[in-house]
C-alpha cells in the first residue's frame, strides 16, 4: 500500500499539500515528492447525505490533509494514510 505524496520545498524544507507553485516560506520553486503514510486524525464528521466520514489529518510529514476516514477511526487516533483506488486521500485505523 502506498502512502500519500506531499511536497517538500527543496530550498527550505517546508512541506505542503496540495502542491503549490512557489513555496510560501522562501519562494522556492523546486519540490521534492515525499510519501507520508501516517498521521493523527484531529477531527472527523459524517456527511449525512453521502454516508461518508471526512476528517482532518495532521500527516507525519507535516501538512494537514482532508481525508476520507475508513474503518471507524476516531478523533485523536493515529491513522494510516493511503491513496484510494478512486483517487482520494484515505485515512484508516491502524490494525497492525
Amino acid at each position, binding site marked *: 500500500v502506498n502512502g500519500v505524496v506531499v511536497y517538500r520545498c527543496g530550498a527550505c524544507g517546508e512541506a505542503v499539500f496540495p502542491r503549490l507553485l512557489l513555496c510560501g516560506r522562501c519562494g522556492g520553486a523546486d519540490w521534492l515528492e515525499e510519501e507520508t503514510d501516517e498521521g493523527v486524525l484531529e477531527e472527523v464528521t459524517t456527511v*449525512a447525505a453521502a454516508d461518508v466520514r471526512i476528517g482532518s489529518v495532521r500527516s507525519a510529514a507535516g501538512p494537514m490533509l482532508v481525508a476520507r476516514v475508513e474503518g471507524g477511526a476516531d478523533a485523536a487516533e493515529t491513522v494510516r494514510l493511503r491513496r*484510494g483506488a478512486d483517487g482520494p486521500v484515505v485515512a484508516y485505523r491502524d490494525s497492525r
Partner: protein
Amino acid sequence: MSDGPAAIVGAFERPYERRPADGVDTGSLLAEAFLGALSSAGLEPGDVDGLAVASFTLAPDSAIDLAWRLGLRLSWIAQSPLGGASGVDLLRQAVRAVEAGDATTVAILAGDRLGAAEFRRLADGYNRATREELAPLPFGGPNSLFSLLTQRHMRATGLDRSDYAQIPLAQRRWAAANPLAVYRSTLTLEDYLAAPPVAPPLCRFDCVPVVSGADALIVTAGGRGTGPAVRPVAFQAAYDVDLQQGDGLSTGFRPFADGPEPDLVYAYDDYPVMVLAQLADLGVIGDLERFLHEELPAGRAVNTSGGQLSAGQAGAAGGLHHLVEAVVQLLGRAGERQVENARSALVSGYGMVLYRYGACANACLLERA
C-alpha cells in the same frame, strides 16, 4: 475629474426563491436587481457608466457580456471571483473608481440562479484543489469542512451546540420581519437541537438554504440620485493570510480604528461559527457567552435581514446581501425590522475555501451621509 467622496445611493434585493420559474436565469435575475437598485436611487440605466459583477453561473459570459445585454456604455468595468467576499471587494473597487473619476455612477450586481445540479457542480468544481482532492472523497460540499472547523472552535472556546444555536435563532427572529427571507417561521432551541444532522455537529439550521436571486448597489458621487446616501468610510481586507496552514479560526481581521460602536453589525453567515470568528477578530464580540446569551436574545442588531441562514444564499449574491440590508437600514427603508436611529454599520465578507477553509475576509464601515 472626481466629484468628491463616493456614496451608495441605491440598494435592492431581487427576491430570493428556492425554486425559480422556468425562464428565470442568472442574467434576468441580475437585470431585475439592476433596475430595482436604479429605481431606489431615482436614476436611469443611461446614468450608469461603471459596472461591477459577481456571479458563479454567468459563464461563459463575463461582465462585458452582461454590459452589452443590459445596454450599458461604460468607462469602467470590474468582476470579482471572490464569492462571499465579492461584495465588499467590488464596493471598495467602485468607491476608488468613482473617487478617481474613472466612472461617475457604478452599478454593483451579484447573483446566481442555482438549482441542485448547478450547486453540486459549483461545489465540486470550486477550484483545482477541490476538484482534485475534495470532490473525489466525496466531501459533500463545504458543510463537512466547516463541521471540522466548528469542532476546532468548540475545542478552543468550550462552546456547544446550544451556544451556536443562538445565531440562527436570533437571525430567524429578524427574518420574521423580512418579507424577502425564504424562512420566516419561528425557530426554537428545541427545533434546532432536534434538527436532522448534515455533518455533525452541524445540523440543517447551521447551513444556508441554497436559493436563486440577486442583489445590487448603486455607487456615485456629486449628489447624483434623489434621496439620502450612505458613505463607505473605511475598508480592510485579508487574503490568504496563513496559506491554509492554520486552523481557519483566525480570519486576519483587525478591529477598525477606535470610534463609536457601529449601530448595525453584519457578518458573513455561511455558518454560525464564522459569524463568531469574524466578529471576534473585528473586536465586536468581547465575551462570547454574553454576546450569544445576552446581546443576541436582547435583539442586538446583527444580521438584521435574517442573514443567509434564514434569507437564503443566492450564490455570489451572498457577498452583497448584507451590504444591501445595511444600506436599506441606514436609509430608513427596512419596514417592520427597521432599527431606530441607525447611522452606522459594519459589514464583513468571507469566503473562497481553497482547501480547508475560506481564504478571503474583507470588511467595511458605512455611515449615513
